[in-house]
């Protein structure tokens, strides 16, 4: 900035410069910036760039980052979803704690789960009856996996200890012991149950 008094301070601004600057900023910030970063990211992290898809026997069975709906007894089940696990209509329930509809949904889920797993409702881990924010949460808590172990083992006619071992193997702890919560990726552990284990 020139501070000299010989320069007059302008009180106006030109429309033409505004138009030219707007066009240049659109090319720079909306064109070049995403183009460069997207291509750099694709070169460095191709698998992640394309959605972290899991491919088994030439079939795309899903994404590590996108939960799926499971209802068959031989699989671990995920959390309730307000989006029916459709990634194009992602979303949470947006129910407030005071909304009677939330209580009704939770009561229904709770009694179904209690019956299915043979547990008292008071011991169901809370994530198993809470809808996630995204509607495609790929994870459940290790406790939520453990309450399902017996039913999965029975449906597959395999020892519970085997299922529990898988839970332990597929439990990811907090990063560096600090960041995030312990969790189990439902799709990945179910693939392992089917003998389609994928490596990292």
């Amino acid at each position: 900035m020139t501070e000299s008094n010989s320069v007059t301070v302008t009180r106006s601004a030109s429309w033409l410069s505004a138009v030219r600057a707007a066009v240049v900023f659109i090319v720079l910030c909306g064109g070049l910036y995403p183009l460069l970063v997207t291509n750099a990211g694709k070169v460095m992290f191709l698998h992640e760039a394309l959605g972290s898809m899991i491919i088994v026997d030439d079939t795309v069975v899903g994404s590590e980052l996108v939960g799926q709906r499971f209802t068959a007894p031989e699989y671990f089940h995920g959390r309730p979803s307000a989006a029916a696990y459709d990634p194009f209509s992602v979303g949470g329930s947006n129910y407030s704690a005071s909304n009677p509809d939330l209580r009704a949904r939770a009561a229904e889920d709770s009694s179904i789960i209690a019956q299915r797993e043979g547990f008292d409702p008071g011991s169901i881990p809370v994530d198993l009856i809470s809808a996630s924010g995204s509607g495609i949460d790929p994870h459940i808590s290790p406790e939520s996996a453990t309450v399902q172990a017996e039913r999965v083992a029975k449906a597959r006619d395999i020892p519970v200890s085997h299922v529990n071992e898988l839970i332990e193997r597929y439990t990811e702890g907090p990063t560096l012991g600090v960041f995030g919560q312990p969790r189990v990726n439902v799709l990945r552990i179910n693939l392992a149950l089917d003998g389609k284990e994928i490596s990292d």
Partner: protein
Amino acid sequence: MNEVIIIYAVTLLLAWPLGKYIAGVFNGEKGTAGAVFLPVESGLYRLFGVDPSQPMSWQGYGKALLKLHLVLVLIVFGLLMAQGLLFLNPDGIGGMSWDLALHTAVSFLTNTNQQHYSGQAQLSYLAHTFGIVTLQVVTPAAGMAALVAIVRTLLGRSDRKSQPSADGTVSVGNFYEDITRAIVRVMLPVAAVVALIIASQGVPNSYEGARTAIPLDQTAGMTEQNIPIGPVAPMVAIKQVGTNGGGWYGPNSSVPLENPTPVSNFVQTVSIVLIPAALVFALGFMTGRRRLAMVVMGVMVVMSVSLTSVAIWSENQPNAAFSGLAADGPNLEGKEVRFGATATALWGSWTTQTSNGSVNGMHDSFNPIGGMIPMIDMFINVTFGGIGVGLIGYLLFLLLAAFLGSLMIGRAPEIAGKALETREMKLVCIALLIQPLLILGFSAITVAFPALTGNSNPGFHGISQVIYEYTSAFANNGSGFEGLGDDTVWWNVTCAVNLALGRFIPILAPLAVAASLAAKRSAPEGRGSLSIDTPTFGLMTLAVIVMFTLLSFMPVLILGPIAEALALMS
């Protein structure tokens, strides 16, 4: 808990050197960065057809800012309506209605990013990048430019302070020079680094269309799962570092494709506060008033930690709806397992303190007190605040505190040796009072006509949904109690009014105040004058902020979240 402490510490530790760097950028220090960026910037000035050394009065600066914004909003509005007919649209997404396009364009123009649509299903790649990302880079830079102009005019070092020209007109700087430096040297480099870090964690990076998977359990009723991807990482990065908040996917950073791991969550959380906090340190380096910067930082950290603690406590309480139906645990409705209640409450509080507005969990499903904290954060809106505008807002409170403080110690009101008189205080009061006027006024009208509200939750929470939406619009935040059915002509148009007034009045009025003060004869700051860089004065400013907020908004807090909490307790 350790996660929260580490995130606070890392953010402030990174903000310090970044603040020093930003101060250097605007003080015109050459340095190594200058050698790289100067040629780029001169090229840009030539393309704009402007002379960056041409000083502007506050009117000239304000007009340049408004004209650039007006051109941008027209282009983006057209783009949103016409996107269905244009290229870069692999998923075949159609154009928006006029009112949704108007609201969306104004929302992103004002650095708000309030979304009445879901990006993955309603925006083409062309609209997402050229429209949305452009505004996500340009608008925080405009906020930063306005802050720098105000700070150098109001508090600048004596050797740099703008002197009135021969005809008495005060220069506040050159708008194009300030905004170009902010974009080229701050916004784009920081965003690019964050984009590549989160890309490593799994945020998609591609111009190809949606992927298709064959789900494992074919008995569960979904034979194919279509997964939208796109050039997501660059957008998510600038959305986080630019206090923008508008995500690629509807539920924002709760979506695992937008925020895949605790590491990406850590980086994105730090990014929310990084530049707003850096600007507080930059204030010290730019003006040489480092003690003032430390006092401002102190006040902001006190406000931030106290409000965030309440949110974290509340979200670790069980959701009342689940009592007896599950084991006791934190409120996980609307939250992701990989983050948990604490990290989500921290994000919810920070994103509303800074006018960011991104979320990694659904605020509508927070416990009543946990959901009240984001509202209080947005009423205050100067706890770090939006890039540039947060600190400008704080300076308004500082002027008010200086005015009241001077009267309390029996002196003629002044700041930095300049007399605070009727003209300045009128502008300060307009900029402050328009907030409760618009938020409460529009909320009252909407609540009075239940057909307009679009509530998804009954009772007291329904009132909270309406107040939250207008508060978020005026605060240029963009988060919401998202159950609200807000894609209607009423919501789109009234929010657009709040968005625009909430953005430009709090920028232009302080700019006029700064220029008006700078034109006055300066009395030397002596022993008797009010010093603004003491902890006592910091406390005074804090008291003014708390009183102003409580007096304006306590009644609606009682009608909404507090009544809901009490009802759930009984």
